[in-house]
């Protein structure tokens, strides 16, 4: 029996939101998927939900207009501990820039940097750990 997760996707690309929502639901790993095309909107959603938020996995894009992935992490850091402890963040990006990779590694909130395209096998393996 594999466990299921509630997902939040944050990506400015409507293609990628569509792709990963489908992929997560089809593979059976996701219980629910909530897509956001702006990091700002996602942040507002999290703040609004507060303690009602179930255990959630966030797949966070890096390069986005407005608030980018790292800026989202900076804001996330300021959220209450009870809320943060409900959330696991994975960065999902096509970046190959070493500075980005180092920065993602150094962040205490980013569990891992996953590269696009996301292979469902990889995601499953990571989440089952």
């Amino acid at each position, binding site marked *: 029996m594999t466990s299921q997760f509630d997902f939040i996707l944050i990506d400015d690309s409507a293609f990628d939101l569509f*792709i990963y929502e489908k992929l997560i639901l089809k593979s059976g790993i996701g219980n629910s998927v909530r897509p956001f095309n702006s990091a700002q909107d996602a942040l507002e959603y999290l703040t609004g939900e507060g303690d009602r938020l179930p255990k959630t996995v966030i797949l966070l894009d890096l390069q986005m*207009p407005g608030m980018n992935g790292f800026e989202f992490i900076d804001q996330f850091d300021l959220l209450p501990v009870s809320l943060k402890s409900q959330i696991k963040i994975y960065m999902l990006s096509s970046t190959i820039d070493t500075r980005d990779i180092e920065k993602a590694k150094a962040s205490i909130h980013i569990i891992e940097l996953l590269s696009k395209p996301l292979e469902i096998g990889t995601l499953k393996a990571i989440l089952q750990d």
Partner: protein
Amino acid sequence: MSDSKIRILYIDDEEHNLQSFKASFRRQYDITTTISVVEAEEIMENQEFHVLLADQRMPGMTGVQFFEKIRSKFPESIRILITGHTDISAAIDAINKGEVFRFIDKPWDYTYVENAITHAYDIYKTRAELKQRNLDLQKAYEELDKFVYSASHDLRAPLMSVLGIVNLALMEDDVQSQNEYLDLIKQSVKKLDTFIINIIDYYKNARGVQAITEIDFNQLVNDVTEAIKFLPEFGKIDMVTKINQTGVFYSDAMKLRIIFNNLITNAVKFQDIKKESPFIKLTVDATPEHTKITFEDNGLGIKKDDIEKIFKMFYRAGATNSGSGIGLYIVHEAITKLQGSINVTSTAGEGSIFEINIPSVNK
């Protein structure tokens, strides 16, 4: 008083020396004088001087000591020492500690002084130019760095989307949804192609040679809109063009094409599909001296916070699939190269007006 004059500060405790210097060079240079080194420093706080002249023998502080004191704070000004007593240890100090550019012997000779000041100013100018070049280079380097970072992202992202779609399609048995995936792949490939075309435009605009020809705005606008009108995204937009051209206008057709193409495409891309009758009004008023172009639409409009940033490279206002963040940057660059100006007024939800003014290029 003209700004192009060489600005000189002369410090000497003997008032009559200052007077005679002023009398000789007043017409040629912008001269400030003082008998006190303390006051000299205060003056320098408020005004920049190209050349500093100081007498060596002054009570309290010698010219060399003064130069040594102010050298690190005002490194740009070129220092000249005036001395009546040739004293070898003062000369050594002047060079080593005060980093003096020239000595002037008292009583001074008009031509000699003039020469020294001219040469000092040349050095001042060369250093200032070098400094500016270094700043420009640094800026260009930073831009290049940013360009490579963003361009590599924008080139890879659509490819990774395609791979993601392929992965998804492989999981699917239903043939009907395969078509949906193919359509997504098509859109993603198109997006990549648009980006590549934009990059090429940018390069042509930035590095290409200007090709000045007679501009026929009717022809130009026609060429550009023909290509856009048949795009499926064009939808039911009502495009009205009013071109009023009198006489011959010279400019770079390539750059104008980039401007028209990007602004019309933007108006199409960011149309408000909720509106009953979307429109683009294009007005061109061209005379042999000057052309004014306005693009007005009732599209999505631009948020207040975004208006200042839309011309920045890779800035994308809001989340959208079709924006690469480079179109308006190229427009801005092209207009700057044509020595024109662009002005935007926009209200989110209502529409935007881009007004462009371009002078004719004289052949």
